[in-house]
């Protein structure tokens, strides 16, 4: 084990995979000479050369489309989209191109590319640099969506994503880049599509991804003081969704809180609560509690931004409501 920051863990994953496989290459805005605005690709240009680590024009639509077809013609691109807020620009390439080809072309091609981006609020970045648009991509068949919460998972899942033969959208969180935790040494890989029990509990299950896992863990500590035993499930992957883990936890606790930092309406929590309703209906002893960002643009000023985002306190309150 080595203590690493989340950003460093991602950097190690990129370095190890580029060293392992000559066809892996990085591109995106400011990723090469500067090493990425969040320093995730720091030092990689020096190590692997400007041919494999490319700064690009500000052309997200074309860059994403290029990742799709480069992946189907023999290389493994890793594209960085600087903010998740720019994801709408990438959508034709993801929704109309990457999503369809494996099936529509009867498995004649595979597309091993990774689109990394980072989202999330809490940094005062304003309405165009703070969103979590997980569902824009999780909605689409044929694209895997991963959202790690810890440095260890960031590394293990990114390495797995790069080796995956299918498109993977890799969602990072700006407030997690500096979080430090232990990362396993060696060739650490995490299976995509497998949830992790971040904390065991017996009274209520809290399902979360990315930064919300940490808020859920804080909420669980708070609930423990009241004698409530909360289980926190870090889904790690939004698609494919680990139904087994979800159903098992609900069967155990009979109460569910679903949390996602995206907007609440038609958000990922809706998918989770519908899944729980469909597959664990007879184990539910209360309606599923659903938390997301309040349905409005994310404001700049701190008290305003704090008001709209889900946090530990709101998660704990939701857990208490579920247990009434």
């Amino acid at each position, binding site marked *: 084990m080595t203590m690493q920051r989340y950003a460093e863990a991602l950097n190690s994953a990129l370095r190890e995979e580029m060293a392992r496989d000559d066809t892996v290459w990085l591109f995106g805005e400011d990723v090469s000479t500067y090493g990425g605005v969040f320093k995730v690709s720091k030092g990689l240009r020096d190590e692997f050369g400007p041919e494999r680590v490319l700064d690009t024009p500000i052309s997200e639509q*074309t860059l994403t489309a290029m990742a799709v*077809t480069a992946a189907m013609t023999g290389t493994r691109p890793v594209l960085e989209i600087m903010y998740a807020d720019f994801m709408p620009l990438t959508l034709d390439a993801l929704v*109309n*191109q990457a999503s369809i080809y494996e099936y529509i072309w009867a498995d*004649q091609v595979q597309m091993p590319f990774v689109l990394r981006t980072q989202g999330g609020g809490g940094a005062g970045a304003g309405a165009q640099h703070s969103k979590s648009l997980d569902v824009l991509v999780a909605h689409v*068949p044929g694209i895997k969506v991963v959202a790690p919460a810890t440095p260890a998972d960031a590394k293990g899942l990114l390495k797995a994503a790069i080796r995956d033969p299918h498109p993977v959208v890799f969602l990072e969180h700006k407030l997690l880049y500096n979080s430090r935790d232990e990362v396993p040494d060696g060739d650490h890989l995490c299976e995509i599509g497998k949830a992790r029990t971040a904390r065991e509990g017996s009274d209520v299950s809290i399902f979360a991804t990315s930064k919300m896992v940490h808020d859920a863990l804080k909420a669980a500590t708070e609930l423990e003081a009241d004698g409530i035993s909360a289980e926190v499930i870090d889904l790690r992957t939004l698609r494919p*969704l680990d139904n087994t883990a979800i159903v098992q936890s609900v069967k155990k606790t009979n109460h569910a809180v679903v949390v996602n930092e995206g907007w609440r309406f038609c958000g990922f929590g809706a998918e989770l609560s519908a899944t729980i309703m469909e597959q664990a209906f007879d184990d539910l002893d209360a309606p599923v509690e659903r938390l997301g960002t309040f349905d409005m643009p994310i404001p700049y000023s701190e008290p305003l931004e704090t008001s709209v985002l889900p946090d530990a306190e709101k998660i704990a309150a939701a857990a208490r409501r579920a247990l009434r």
Partner: protein
Amino acid sequence: MKNSPSLDDQLEMYRKMVLVRQLEESLGELHKQGKTRGPIHRCDGQEAVGVGATAMLSSDDYVTSTHRGHAHYVGKGLDIHKIVAEILGRETGYCKGRAGHMIVASAEHGLLGGNAIVGACIPAAVGMAQSLKLLKSDRVAMCVFGDGSAQTGICHESMNIAALWKLPVIFVLEHNEYGLTVHSDEQSAIKDLYKRAEAYGMPGKKVDGNDMLAVYESVATSVDRARRGEGPSLIEAKTYRRAGFSTSDMGGYQSEEKIALWEKKDPITIAVKKLKKLVEPTTLRDIEELAIQHVKDAVDQALADPYPTFEPHAASNPYRGVVL
């Protein structure tokens, strides 16, 4: 002369143009009989672009195409029967009936593939070219696109990036004057779109798109340049869309006079006139008869082919574990 096709090459191009013409007429009939689904976008009169531009490519060069791509499919060597079977939604089609006529792909022929999002084939070829460059290959990627596509943002982004990175791309602009019902004069302030090439820092040329030899020679020069690693080129092939936007087009916005004028400049007529100077008329007639029979046989066979049966697609599946 360098980059001129041999006589055999010319006869093969002629054969392919007749195949395409017969294919388009047969599809028109099948559509009227209700044997096809959805619209069919015919390319009658534009055969010389698709066939001429692809004739010098090998099967491991890549071509990306449009929703009006039958001449590109045939030019790249795809089998008529498997094209027709795909259009008729049969198991024996290139994509097992999943794609339909607009999105046909054949990986073994490097055709990846038709694309019904106008403009999307342009960055697609650029991504493939980037892969080829990283793989240090002398293969090339070609996109054939229309004057409608030329007005998209991704066309600009793609040409900029291709020229910037000196990628082995050939931009073949099949200028047929119409984007659905709107004439190109109402979509662009300039008539000659090849002039934009200079602004991106790449060669731009204009050719008679109804003369297969002219198309061939112009494109072949650009292909050679791309293979040498000298970067992309833009060839604007002037032609005319005689067949309406699609089989669902009610017409009325194209003038009869103009259509009649372009019928006189029919690419097959032009080819025959030139070839008659080189071979006996019976040679051409034999080629024509065989090609017509070839398409008839292909249609008969495809009509008798089985439909596919539905199966879920694992790579598109959103869940793992328990599923209802």
